[in-house]
């Protein structure tokens, strides 16, 4: 029996021609853009579900990601850990993070492997922080994507992200992260990582389907003694379009620092909110006030008396003008 939904990530993709089905009319959020035309339709929300308990750490997802996105991650040194490369990079959009955790309740060593990458937040901090109009967009299916033609390489997205995901390339000075294979999803396929996963620890479908599938997996894990098993779909960022099934959902941080309660930092919100509007207002008012003063007020001019007194002092014996 197959416990994952039948979806393009699992079954073979359609071979007949498929019209690209993700475009400008599907954009619901656009960075640095105040008003956006309403989307022409509402796509089903999609999600990638990563079942940490089924992951065997084979890194097929990483390989598939590199292959599909045609990136060239640097070959690095072995530093005695399976995590490789050492971190997400502009050429490595997803990374298996390996953590050896001793469960204090059982004294068992648990090998926690988490596939890290963009979570495709419903409320994306990267998009909020981005200063370049249209460099980051969110589609109505939930995918958050970077338009590299508009990206200016400032790295604000790196600071806006609650999960520390985007990386700015030193080569072309543009930000890179997982696209949820938006180019594959647009033509009816699932993400490359899900396609490659040999244990179906990674599955892809509509968010509703994925939540239902997660419920089955959680029930299974609970029946095996993982009483804290649960779904990671953090509310602080409005939910995510990449979700985890965790066997210890009560403490996400044990999975290589997955944030317990992620949200866009209030500092970022204040910076992009009140600072921008109040700052622009203050500068505008100051400029307008000086222009108005310049037009309507009398300039501070040197008078003829000043000139006489000044000349007397300049030409005098040094005491001139002193009363």
């Amino acid at each position, binding site marked *: 029996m197959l416990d994952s939904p039948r979806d393009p990530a699992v079954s073979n993709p359609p071979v007949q021609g498929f019209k690209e089905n993700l475009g400008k009319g599907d954009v619901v959020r656009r960075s640095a*853009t105040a008003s956006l035309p309403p989307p022409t339709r509402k796509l089903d929300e999609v999600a990638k579900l990563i079942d940490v308990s089924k992951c065997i750490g084979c890194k097929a997802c990483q390989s598939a990601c590199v292959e599909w996105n045609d990136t060239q991650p640097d070959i690095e040194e072995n530093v005695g850990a399976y995590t490789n490369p050492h971190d997400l990079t502009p050429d490595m959009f997803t990374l298996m993070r390996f953590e050896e955790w001793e469960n204090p309740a059982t004294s068992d060593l648990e090998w926690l492997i988490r596939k890290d990458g963009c979570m495709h937040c419903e409320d994306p901090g990267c998009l909020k922080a981005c200063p370049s109009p249209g460099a980051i967009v969110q589609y109505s299916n939930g995918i958050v994507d970077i338009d590299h033609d508009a990206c200016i390489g400032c790295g604000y997205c790196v600071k806006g992200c609650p999960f520390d995901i985007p990386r700015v390339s030193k080569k072309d*000075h543009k930000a890179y992260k997982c696209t949820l294979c938006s180019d594959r999803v647009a033509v009816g396929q699932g993400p490359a990582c899900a396609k490659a996963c040999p244990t179906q620890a990674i599955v892809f479908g509509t968010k509703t389907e994925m939540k239902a599938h997660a419920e089955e997996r959680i029930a299974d894990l609970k029946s095996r003694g993982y009483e804290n098993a649960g779904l990671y779909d953090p509310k602080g960022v409005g939910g995510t379009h990449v979700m985890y099934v965790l066997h210890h959902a009560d403490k996400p941080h044990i999975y290589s620092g997955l944030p317990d309660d992620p949200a866009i930092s209030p500092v970022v919100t204040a910076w992009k909110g009140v600072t921008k509007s109040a700052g622009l207002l203050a500068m505008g008012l100051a400029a307008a006030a000086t222009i108005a003063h310049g037009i309507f007020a009398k300039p501070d001019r040197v008078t003829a008396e000043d000139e006489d007194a000044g000349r007397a002092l*300049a030409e005098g014996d*040094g005491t001139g003008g*002193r009363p």
Partner: protein
Amino acid sequence: MSQPTLVEPGDAIRPGEPPVVERYRAGARINHWITALTMVLLILSGLGLFHPALFFLTSLFGGGQIARTLHPLFGLVLAASFLLLFLQFWRGNLWKPEDGAWVAHLGDLVAGHDEKMPEVGKYNAGQKFVFWSLAALIVVMLTTGIMIWDQFFEGLTPIPAQRIALIVHAVSAVFVILVIILHVYAAIWVRGSFDAMIKGHVTAGWAWRHHRKWFRQLAERRAAGTDRL
């Protein structure tokens, strides 16, 4: 007798028809205008990243990528150039008792009752405010700017610190722009001020009206024959 800190090197009365008062040497003026030019470039490129409505300003530099690259480089030039200005002007900008009285009469100044203002030295309290606030703000902007300059200083500080640097950089930038608006407008409103920074000298009437204490001291030095020492 004369207080040496009121007068900067090069300040002197130059007899002639009419007599003029030397206020800024060529070096100081060039230094000032390099600072001013980089300040304008910094404000334009920075505002482009500050608010989406101003993003079009980045096209003055050839687009967002180039504006993003140049902005911190302008910042380094400004910091170095301002440092040189600072070293020349800081003594003259130390706070003096008459500065408090000058601030107390600010209402009279704006209302045009110049005769009620106390006599001040080379710089009045308003100029000192511009000087010290810019000095402090530039230190803050340089520090926070380096923290968010990923091209060369990526990972120098943790991301939560970088977020604070971003907001502090933005808020400080707003204050810098407000101070610059004050500085430029004061120079326009007080007619004759541009001469000081362009030609290097002002009329005797201007010196008498706006910086009489400084002017008197120059006259005393001239009378004593120590004005060109």
